């Protein structure tokens, strides 16, 4: 089932299915390595606020990224 990243509980690991939104948002996320198919681990989140994710399937250390609430409503993921 596809849900926005904003609704994922901390600790879960999810796969990015679809990113909606304008070109700007889109290519910024891509250059940061958040693209369709990537596995993300949700580290922390604040209800109705930002989310910290880790790109879980990277080789080497996993960089952390903060995504604002609006952004997280545009990134659709499913349980991985």
């Amino acid at each position: 089932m596809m849900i926005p990243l904003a609704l994922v509980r901390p600790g879960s690991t999810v796969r990015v299915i679809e990113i909606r939104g304008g070109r700007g948002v889109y290519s910024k996320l891509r250059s940061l390595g958040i693209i369709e198919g990537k596995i993300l681990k949700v580290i922390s989140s604040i209800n109705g606020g930002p989310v910290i994710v880790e790109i879980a399937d990277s080789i080497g250390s996993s960089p952390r990224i903060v995504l604002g609430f609006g952004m997280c409503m545009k990134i659709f993921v499913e349980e991985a």
Partner: protein
Amino acid sequence: MSKKEGYIVALAGVPNSGKSSIFNKLTGGRAWVGNWPGVTIEKKIGTMRINSIEIEVVDLPGIYGLTAYSLDEIIARNFIVEENPDLVIVVVNATNLERSLYLALSILELEANTIVALNMVDLAEEQGIVIDHEKLSELLGIPVIPTVAVTGSGLKKLRELILEYVGRSKGRTNIVDYGYDLERAIRDVEKILQENVPEIIRKYPSRWISIKLLEWDEDVIRKVKSYAGGNEVIRKVEKIRAELQNKIDDLELFMTERRYQTILNIVKEVIKQTKAKGVTWTDLLDSILTHRFLGIFSAIAVLYMLFRFAFEISTPFVDLFSILINGYLHNRILGLKFLPSWLASLLADGVTNGVGTVVSFLPLIMMFFLGLAFLEDVGYMTRIAYLVDKLFSKFGLSGKTVIPLVIGFGCNVPAVMATRTIEDENERKTAALIAPLATCSARLPVYMVIAYAVFRQVAGAVVLSMYIWSVALALLVALALRKLVFKGPSAGFVMEMPPYIMPRSDIIGMKMWERSKRFLYKAGSVILIGVIFIWLLSVTGPSGFLGANALSSPRLLEHSWTGLLGKAFSETIFRPLNWDWRISVALIFGFIAKEIVVGTMAILYGIGESGLPAALAKLHAFTPVTGYAFMIFVLIYVPCIATIATIRSEMGSKYAVMAVAYELILAYTLALAVISFGHLLGVM
């Protein structure tokens, strides 16, 4: 060899990869470093000397790719794409190879003459990541040198390579293979470019332009359109794209995936993970510091502790400085009988009291800067941004805005500049206009003096309340600006969060000293001149020279120029605020820089043996209510000329005027509100 002079080498890389640290080591410069993405917001030029050859090195803001979103990124992108540096050093973060390589590939596609500094190998090793740099060099087709910028390891080798590679030209690379269909399309577009806009491919590589056009990069489209025949090219590319989209539905995604595939293939070959991913310090700290409930409490605790630390440690030193300067030095100068009385007064009552009182706060300011440097380097800034994002979004800002505000607690000038990293224009302008409300270190001595003069036991709490006002007002003004002037939806908030690192004492020390030096420099220049000027205006008046003892005789002083000027304000516009004329004078000159407020009060009230606060208390210069109103006024009204000049150069005169106007109106209104509130409670 001498022809190597005049060469320009650029440092490019993802944010926080250590470009500025390498720059400092190469040039002996003092570029600002810190552990969050977006520290460098302007290109900085330095000179590297090697074997008596001089090469210019340019430190650039960080970028993730050659598409720029914010002002700082545009500076970096334009430099690499348009200025054609003779060598690009791509600083690659060894702990985060994938992201760094994405940029490295983009720069290679641009066919720039490139070498790689594989930085932070120490941190990578700590995490059990070992990178085969020779293999990496082979796969990328360019030299790769492992470095540790903070210790200087690998830097000697880097210098040698710079010397060897600078000025070489780089041929075509097909580092990323885009697959049969796209590669054919790229060739087609290259042919179209050659036929229609041959000039553009003399300036930029044709493969690069073709890739960017197929990706529909708005910047490159604009570039092509600016040439005669460009529109024709774009029409043809549109057709090719349409054809391609029959086979590949999302072209941009497909191209990004091809790049990441290339990166993955490289990374797989070069990384030897020797240890399994364990629990790191960053994991542990973040589980508390970014916890949804504990996080905000820890933030308050951390900031409060830093504040107390700066206070407690420095108080005895401030007292000591004050005794030495205002007591001992002042009396010694007055005791020098060979000085003419006017000169003794200038040196003792003017310079020593005026500048000395400001300088006596140096220990406090240094401790404050130490705390700030610690916050910046440990990696906590991005965590604060995360924690406040939800709150800030209610005021039309993203969490990122907190970074300029925190920097602003040090000085408002770099705070205004730091807003460049905010992508959304409306948010950025709002942030730049509220940055002056961040209560800078120059305002701290004013609060200290007033708080110790009238609030004594609760002085610390009263000073702390200024910081709360500062943030609260910044948010409220932001809300007003976002509703009335800079309307528009909030843009998304995305920010990389670096791991925590234990700050190095040499870097923290350097940063503390650089900031303190600026404070001392200001004391010795602007403040000194200001203070001499005020002394001059205080010992003279419409009737001429009033005598060197004017400063110790309130009656005489009232007839000086400063007396007349102060009264012109205190009896008119400042009348409802119940401030003495001397306070008006301090505020007028404080327009130049906030330190002058304390300096002026020191001259006009005179300082006894026990310092300015005691002198103010004895003279009953302030009541708690007028004192608090004064602190509020100093918090809000124009921080200094330099900040206004920065707003002007960053955004234009219109906004500089707007900043001054809102600050003056708000300062006056709130100071008046404090006074009225005091009246209401009957505690004048």
